[in-house]
C-alpha cells in the first residue's frame, strides 16, 4: 500500500491530474459554468479528435521520434476518401468510408515508414518533408476544395449521439457523439498493442536505445515501418471523425494541430527522448490542453492568448520532464 502511494506520488500523471483538478475548480469559481453537465460533455466532445491524434503521436514519441506529418496525412486520406465517395455518388453506411480511410492511412503511413525505417535522419526532418508532400499533393495535384456535402453515411455518423446532456440552469444541451467510442476503441487497441504484444514492447525498446533493441533481437526496421503504418491509420481515423462531425470536408482544417497534440503528449509525461510514457498521461495531457482552450472563453480571456498559452504550456511541460530526466541521470551516475 505504501509502495503504491509512493509510486503514485512520483508519477507524472498524478501531478497532471492535480493540475487539472485545481484548474477546473478555479474555472468553476470564476465562471460557475465548468461543472455543468453540458460543459463536461462539450469537453469530452472536443477531446475526441486531439485524443485520437494524441494516441498516434504518443506511439511515435515512445519510439524516440517526433512526427509532425499526421494532420497533413489525415487531411489527405480523408480528402481522398470523401472525394472518391462523393464522385461515385455513394450513399451507404459509414463502413465503406471507414475502410477506405484506413487503407489510405496505412498507405500514407507506409510512405512515412519507408523513410524513417531506412534513413538515419531525425524523424522530425523526414516528417516535415512528408507533411509538405501530403498537403502539397492534396492542394496541388488533387486541387482540393471544400466539399460541402459529405456522403450521407458519414454525416449520419457525425450526428449520431450516445446521449444528450442538459444544463438545468441555462437549458443548453450538448450531445455526446458516438464518435467518442472511436477514441475509446483506439485507446484500448493501442493499450493492448503496446503492453501485450512483442511489437509494442519493441516500440518501447526502440525508444530506449535503438542498438540495444536490435541486439535484443527486435527487428528495428520492421518495427519502425509498421509503427508508422499504424500511426497513419490512427491519424486518418481522427480525420474521418473530424470531417463527419463537421459535416463537411475542409482540407486545411486539421493542419497546424500537430503542435498542440505533441504538446499534450509531452505534458502527459512521455519522455521526449523516447522509451517511456503512458497512454493515461497522454490522455490527461490532452484533457488539460482541451480544458485550457475551452475555458479561455468561459473565463473571458481573448482567444488571441491561445498561441501564447500553448507555447508556455509546451515549454513548462517539457522543462519539467527534462529536469526530471537530468535528476534521474545524476542519481544513476552517483550510484555507479
Amino acid at each position, binding site marked *: 500500500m505504501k509502495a503504491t502511494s509512493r509510486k503514485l506520488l512520483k508519477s507524472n500523471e498524478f501531478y497532471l491530474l492535480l493540475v487539472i483538478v485545481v484548474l477546473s475548480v478555479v474555472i468553476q469559481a470564476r465562471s460557475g459554468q465548468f461543472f455543468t453537465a453540458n460543459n463536461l460533455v462539450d469537453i469530452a466532445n472536443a477531446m475526441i479528435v486531439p485524443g485520437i491524434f494524441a494516441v498516434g503521436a504518443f506511439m511515435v514519441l515512445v519510439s524516440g521520434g517526433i512526427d509532425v506529418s499526421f494532420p497533413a496525412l489525415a487531411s489527405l486520406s480523408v480528402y481522398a476518401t470523401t472525394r472518391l465517395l462523393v464522385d461515385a455518388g455513394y450513399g451507404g453506411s459509414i463502413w465503406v468510408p471507414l475502410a477506405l480511410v484506413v487503407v489510405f492511412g496505412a498507405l500514407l503511413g507506409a510512405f512515412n515508414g519507408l523513410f524513417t525505417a531506412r*534513413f538515419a535522419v531525425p524523424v522530425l*526532418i523526414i516528417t516535415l518533408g512528408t507533411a509538405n508532400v501530403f498537403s502539397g499533393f492534396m492542394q496541388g495535384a488533387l486541387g482540393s476544395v471544400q466539399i460541402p456535402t459529405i456522403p450521407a453515411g458519414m454525416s449520419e455518423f457525425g450526428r449520431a449521439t450516445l446521449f444528450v446532456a442538459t444544463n438545468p440552469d441555462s437549458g443548453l444541451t450538448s450531445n455526446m457523439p458516438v464518435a467518442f467510442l472511436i477514441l475509446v476503441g483506439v485507446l484500448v487497441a493501442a493499450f493492448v498493442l503496446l503492453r501485450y504484444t512483442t511489437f509494442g514492447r519493441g516500440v518501447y525498446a526502440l525508444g530506449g536505445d535503438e542498438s540495444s533493441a536490435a541486439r535484443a533481437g527486435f527487428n528495428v526496421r520492421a518495427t519502425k515501418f509498421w509503427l508508422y503504418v499504424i500511426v497513419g491509420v490512427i491519424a486518418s481515423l481522427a480525420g474521418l471523425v473530424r470531417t463527419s462531425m463537421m459535416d463537411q470536408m475542409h482540407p486545411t482544417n486539421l493542419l497546424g494541430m500537430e503542435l498542440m497534440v505533441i504538446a499534450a503528449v509531452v505534458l502527459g509525461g512521455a519522455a521526449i*527522448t523516447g522509451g517511456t510514457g503512458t497512454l493515461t498521461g497522454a490522455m490527461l495531457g490532452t484533457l488539460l490542453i482541451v480544458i485550457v482552450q475551452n475555458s479561455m472563453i468561459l473565463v473571458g480571456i481573448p482567444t488571441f492568448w491561445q*498561441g501564447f498559452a500553448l507555447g508556455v504550456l509546451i515549454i513548462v511541460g*517539457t522543462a519539467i520532464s*527534462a529536469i526530471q530526466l537530468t535528476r534521474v541521470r545524476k542519481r544513476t551516475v552517483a550510484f555507479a
Partner: protein
Amino acid sequence: MRLAAVLVVLLAFFALVKTENFFSLPTWQSMAIQFPEFGLMALGVMLAMVIGGIDLSVVGVANMTAIGSATLMLWIAPVGSDAGQGYVALVAAIGLSLLVGALAGALNGFLVAKVRIPAILVTLGTFELFTGIAVIISGGKPTSGLPPQYGEVMASRLFGLIPMPLIIFVVATVLVGLLMYKTAFGTKLYMLGSNETAASFSGLKTTSLTIRTYMLSGVLASAAGLVMLANYNSAKADYGSTYTLLAVLIVVLGGINPNGGSGRLSGVVLAVVVLQVLSSLLNTFPQVSSFYRPLIWGAVLLLVIVVNQWDRKGNLNRFFRWKGKDA
C-alpha cells in the same frame, strides 16, 4: 560541388526555356529581394544544426520582431509625421528588432543548454510562444502604415543596381563566415556539434556556447523579419509560414549533417540560391499552381535525404567514375 553542378544545370535550363525572363534584370533583382527572407533564417538554422540542434522558431522570431518594430515605428512616427521622425523610427526599429531577436534566441539557448530540453521541442514551443506574442501585439491583424522612410531605405539600391536585402544577406553571410572559419568560436561550434561530452571535457563552456549560438540565430531571424517587413510593407503573425520547412530544407540540402558537427557555409549559401532560382523558374510557369510548392519542397527534402544516404556508401563517386569522370 554537386550542388554547384545542380545550379549550373538549373540555370542552363532556365536560360533555354525562359530566355526572355532569364536575361532580364528585374528577374534577378526580384530574386535578390526575395531570398534574403528565408536565406537569413537558413543561416540561423544552420548555426543551430552545426551544434547538433535545430531552430524551428525562426519564423516566429521574425514575425514577432517585425510586428514589434512596426509597432514601435508607428508609435515614434505616426502616419503623417515628418521625415526626421521617420529616420529616428527606422533606427529605433532596427535596434529593437535585433535586440529582441537576440533575447528570443537567448531564451531558446537557455532552455536547450540549461534546462536541457531537446532543441526540437524548445523551438517548437517558442515558435508557438513568439507567434502568440505577435498575435497579442498585433491583435491578429496586419500592422501597416509604416513610415515611408523605412520602405525607402530598404528598397534603395547600391549603385542603382543591388537591392538592400541582398546587401543585408551578403553582410550577414560574410560575418557568419568570418565567425565560423576565422575565430575560435567557430571551431568550438563544430567540436560541440560532433561530440558534446568530449567538448565539455576538453574545457569548452558548452552552456554559454549554445546560448550564444541560438542568440546569433535569433538575430539573423530578426534581420529576416526586417526584410519581410520591408517586402510586404506590413507585418502579420502568420507571414512566411512555409519558411520553416524551407530553411530546414536549405540547410539539409546545403550538406549540414542534421546530427551536428559537419557541413559548410558555402553549401548553405549555394542551396539558398538554388532554391530561389528553382522558385523563380516555377513562377514563370503560371499553370503550376502555387499549391504545388510545398509538394516540391517536401519532395526535394526527401530526395536529398535519400541521395545523401546513398552517397555515404560512396555510390555517387563510383557512379561518376564509371562515367569516366573523376569526381
